[in-house]
């Protein structure tokens, strides 16, 4: 049992958690680890590079013979583009990623404070730094927009609570601005995450209001105001995005993704999408379920956690398919693990508080070991994983080839480059018929087959190779003259369809192939090209939403509230709960 005055009974200041996040992640990001180990870092840098050169022109000729960047909310990419003017693209990505990572404990703390006391929230914040899913999303997935958007939404719902519960207009402004910024950062988080985070908080605000003896109807009314304003704001800020998805709803043949499979059918996938993202968090599952079920206050949080956890299991259960329908085939499910962890952490913080009070240093040590083991597993998995991204491939020789002697008058294709393709596209002037963003693909050679990219065609079996063959068949139409091969698997197809090897790069690891009769590329007319006014909106509103959010946070300081509801707490010396939350 820990005494009242023990060091272990003190709350952990948020600054400590932020510092720990910095201490762990800053060196790794300075080393630019995600560029070598993650799947999507190059992709986001590629998007950012376009904004760096054409801020108000969302039509990008470098992929898919032209595609619209309004198919992906731009905020993160525009921030990278902006910062890149001072420090370069790769470094800018790392800096923005570091900002997002630092915001995780901040948002975890803010969200946990709605449910539990300061000390438990402090534990939740600190543990969030070590969460396997954070490292997984940062270093393995490279999903910066997911991470940033999630943290912004978490912050937004804390203000949403404050507005709904106490009618604090400053909170309304800040919550709205943060919601718009979060929506501008990531669309999937906007569509699915916002409800998952907001609904339990709405329930909480109504409950707290009732316990104070006031009517919950006012809370509902204010929530409605918030919802309407947020929806209107998001509709305007992301208008070009809505136009693009209404004009071109995703109708392509579903593309297989491991996160959509039954995790129990394959050991590596099981480790990749369950063990690594959750780590020791899995040990806390029984406590989360029983503690969450045991307290009325925590039940909505538990249900949101459970729902998100089940979604994160992908195709292991049929529930995601039932709920999402066709969207199930479009989404990837690793992001749900981050939401599940952030939703579960307040209860884990409570558990930590209880165990530390009861077992003192032993419990603290246990949590420390579990936390370090979790992040270590996630980092170690970068090496042990059989799924290896190729983002670290040196493509400088290919860039140099494409940028000389008029080679950029033609389009190109890579085979076997995997996620080094966006790196090549970032620096090469020529355009490719391939690309790494499934939702922006409109070329029938891609959408009529169940393969994601030409560069990874072989991993999609017959569908992939047929898709690639169809594109090679239409090489003349697209001005596709050059193919760069980093996997000899594709060479026979090229030889039999009339391509000829002309150069080798990287000591023979990459070969360049040419089809001599291909005419120079011409622009492919597409009705997906946004109107100029959309480009102007796209260049101003999302970025403005984040600026406004920052300004509101600075200029409208929070008022000190007497309390927020009836926080769940672990009073000393007996491990019992506050009377109002006794079962």
């Amino acid at each position, binding site marked *: 049992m820990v005494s009242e005055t023990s060091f272990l009974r003190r709350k952990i200041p948020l600054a400590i958690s932020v510092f720990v996040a910095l201490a762990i992640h800053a060196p790794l990001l300075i080393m630019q680890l995600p560029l070598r180990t993650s799947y999507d870092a190059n992709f986001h840098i590629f998007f950012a590079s376009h904004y760096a050169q054409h801020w108000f022109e969302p039509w990008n000729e470098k992929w898919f013979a032209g595609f619209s960047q309004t198919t992906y909310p731009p905020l993160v990419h525009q921030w990278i583009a902006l910062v890149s003017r001072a420090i370069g693209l790769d470094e800018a990505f790392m800096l923005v990623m570091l900002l997002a990572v630092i915001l995780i404990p901040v948002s975890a703390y803010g969200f946990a404070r709605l449910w539990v006391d300061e000390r438990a929230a402090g534990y939740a914040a600190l543990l969030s730094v070590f969460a396997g899913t954070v490292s997984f999303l940062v270093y393995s997935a490279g999903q910066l927009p997911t991470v940033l958007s999630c943290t912004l939404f978490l912050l937004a719902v804390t203000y949403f609570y404050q507005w709904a519960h106490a009618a604090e207009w400053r909170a309304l402004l800040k919550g709205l601005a943060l919601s718009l910024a979060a929506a501008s950062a990531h669309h999937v988080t906007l569509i699915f995450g916002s409800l998952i985070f907001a609904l339990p908080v709405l329930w909480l605000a109504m409950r707290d209001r009732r316990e104070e003896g006031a009517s919950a109807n006012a809370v509902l009314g204010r929530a409605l105001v918030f919802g309407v304003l947020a929806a209107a704001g998001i509709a305007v800020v992301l208008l070009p995005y809505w136009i693009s998805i209404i004009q071109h709803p995703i109708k392509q043949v579903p593309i297989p993704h491991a996160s959509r499979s039954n995790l129990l059918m394959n050991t590596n996938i099981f480790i990749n999408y369950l063990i690594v993202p959750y780590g020791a968090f899995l040990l806390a599952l029984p406590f989360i*379920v029983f503690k969450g*079920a045991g307290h009325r206050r925590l039940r909505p949080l538990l249900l949101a956690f459970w729902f998100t956890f089940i979604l994160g299991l992908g195709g292991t259960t049929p529930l995601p398919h039932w709920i999402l329908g066709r969207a199930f085939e479009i989404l990837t499910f690793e992001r749900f693990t981050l939401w599940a962890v952030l939703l579960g952490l307040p209860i884990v913080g409570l558990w930590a508080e209880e165990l530390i009070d009861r077992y003192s240093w032993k419990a603290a040590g246990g949590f420390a070991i579990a936390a370090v083991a979790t992040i270590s597993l996630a980092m170690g998995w970068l090496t042990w994983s059989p799924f290896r991204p190729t983002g670290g491939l040196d493509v400088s020789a290919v860039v140099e080839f494409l940028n000389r002697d008029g080679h950029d008058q033609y389009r190109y294709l890579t085979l076997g480059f995997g996620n080094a393709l966006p790196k090549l596209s970032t620096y090469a002037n020529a355009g490719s018929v391939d690309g790494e963003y499934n939702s922006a693909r409109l070329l029938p050679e891609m959408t009529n087959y169940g393969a994601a990219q030409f560069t990874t065609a072989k991993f999609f079996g017959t569908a992939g190779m047929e898709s690639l063959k169809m594109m090679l068949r239409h090489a003349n139409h697209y001005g596709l003259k050059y193919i760069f091969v980093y996997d000899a698997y594709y060479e026979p197809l090229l030889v*039999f369809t009339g391509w000829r090897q002309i150069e080798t790069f990287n000591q023979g690891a990459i070969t360049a192939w040419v089809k001599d009769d291909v005419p120079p590329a011409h622009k492919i007319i597409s009705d997906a090209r946004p109107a100029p006014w959309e480009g102007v909106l796209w260049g101003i509103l999302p970025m403005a939403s984040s600026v406004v959010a920052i300004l509101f946070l600075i200029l409208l300081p929070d008022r000190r509230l007497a309390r927020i509801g009836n926080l769940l707490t672990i009073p000393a010396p007996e491990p019992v709960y506050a009377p109002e939350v006794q079962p």
Partner: protein
Amino acid sequence: MKASLALLLVMVTAALIALGWVQSGGVTSHEISAARTPEQAVEALMADVEAHNWNRAYARLADTGTVEKQDFIRDLSGSNGSLRTYSNLQSFTVWPLHATDEDATVRVRMTWSSAIGPMDDVRDLHLRHAGDVWTIDWPKPNFPKVPPQVIPVNYLRWDVIGRNAGDEWGVENVDTPNVRITSMNAIDRPEGLVLVGEVVNEDTVPAYVSVNATLLKPDQSTLDQESSFDMIAHTLLPRQVSPYRIDFPGMRIRQVKSVRMDVKSLLVPASADPVIAVANQKLGKDALGGNVLSGDLLNQSGQNVDIAQVVAAYYDANGKVIWVSNGYVDQALVPDFPVPFAVNIPKDIAPKVESYHLVVNHYSRKNG
């Protein structure tokens, strides 16, 4: 309430996971793995081959003494850089041909996803009932054994020296090869309009050749454009003739006013080696009753050919090209060892075929 909600969540989760397991085929795969019937035994073997689980696949064979494990693997996964080494088993279909209590014959059609597209391989497997399970008699594969020998490389190759970017205009003085389309025939097929014919290199240097066709509407605007793609020998040596076929899926001949043919030729480096003889060509039927042109490919040079492709033109009694088809060979061509091939011919075309002409394309990794 506390216990009931927790219990409910646990039970619902367990039920969902169980349902997911059933839906993902977990139960079926468990049953198949038991190999209680001949079909299950072959399906289990194929599932192991698909997963590259060679140990378990080999363990399903009846008499492992007759087939070495390495030979078994080599038989299925290929060797010598053959097309099979660029392939993965994508799917399979199994159906019984004959069964008693003691033995059975099962036909399996393996569809391989390969570097040049899907390929089918049909095999009839004999099985034996041993205890509770059925095991498979895998036929001993017949791999080429080439005696050590020296085969002189005596054929020709051509190199092309490119002009420099800084050269004056007019200095370049090597024209593109002179190639000519000698025949073209438009055929309406159920899958669309098909153009077939032949092209000859009339020059004295090798030519890279690609035949493109544009279908024109009555107002001379473009209806569709396609190319010969892999239905042609792209590199033609002097006086060499190649069939070509251009497919226009979904098009009908009545939609087309005229066709603009465009043969592109370019001077490219080439080699006259290897020379591949096509022996014992004959029209016949395959195991599934389809019409095929079959024969043997014989590599007459000393260098292995990893992957060979046969492109065949079929003529009617008037000498007109009525169809062109191609087929890839999934075994490597080692020197002087015949490798069988078969090229499909549509059922309605086969009776009209009076004659045919084949060319062989090839790929070897060593030469890129």
